[in-house]
């Protein structure tokens, strides 16, 4: 796996992450389509994800939760807004309450995933659009391994200042 590019827009609050994998497009699509594979990588090892409902078709809602080290569950949902298998997937990724019911007090994050074949490898580009700093903060809180990586990011920021 090679990280090809990362673009961050601090005004628009977007992140574009592109990486290439040594597998064909159909195989990489499976890690998104198959909930058992998806839950092996969506959450960090300290907050593994469990998808209780998942289907990649327009209008379909996925439900998932992430379980923290102390057993705390953070619930979320996806609403699939566009699919063109195996190259395009768009969905809203939102927060839910402890019963899995969508929490409307905080907006959903918009995700666009594109897969393209390049020299037999697959380039996967994910574009995340955040609506607010609060939402970005909550997403980081849910997806982040504790400790080191965050501090490393801060060092980069200090150097950039």
């Amino acid at each position, binding site marked *: 796996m090679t990280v090809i590019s990362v673009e961050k827009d*601090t005004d628009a609050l977007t992140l574009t*992450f592109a990486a290439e994998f040594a597998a064909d497009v159909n195989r990489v699509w499976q890690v998104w389509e198959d909930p058992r594979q998806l839950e092996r990588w969506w959450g*960090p090892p300290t907050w593994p994800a469990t998808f209780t409902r998942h289907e990649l078709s327009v209008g379909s809602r996925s439900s998932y939760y992430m379980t923290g080290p102390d057993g705390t569950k953070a619930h979320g949902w996806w609403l699939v807004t566009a699919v063109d298998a195996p190259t395009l997937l768009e969905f809203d990724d939102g927060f839910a309450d402890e019963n899995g019911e969508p929490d409307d007090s905080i907006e959903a994050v918009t995700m666009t995933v594109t897969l393209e074949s390049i020299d037999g490898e697959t380039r996967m580009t994910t574009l995340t659009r955040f609506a607010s700093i609060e939402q970005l903060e909550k*997403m980081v809180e849910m997806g982040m391994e*504790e*400790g080191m990586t*965050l501090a490393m990011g*801060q060092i*980069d920021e200090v150097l950039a200042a």
Partner: protein
Amino acid sequence: MVVYELTDSEIDRIFQALADATRRDIVSRVLTAGHSVTALAEHYDMSFAAVQKHVQVLERALLVTKERHGREQLVNSRIDTIGRAATLLQAYEQIWAQRALRIDDILAEDTLKEQS
């Protein structure tokens, strides 16, 4: 975005402050919400005074602020001074970098299966 010019000695203090695992952990805990020193101390196998000292080092490095809230001292991140959005996006980038590594592990299993 507000950009601060940091002096060399300020940068040295920041690096020294973040060279310690406990202090890095404190910084990541207070990044999203303020914590009292008492609440922070519960996470570590060390005395309240020792945690207090770590917080002081972070304070001198301008990474956190400490203010009195009734009987408690509340520790807050000062990361907004060096670009809150940039820092959070940096953290979010790490989330994707780690996800990509985990996807790679899953894909690598196919190759192993083919070989066996």
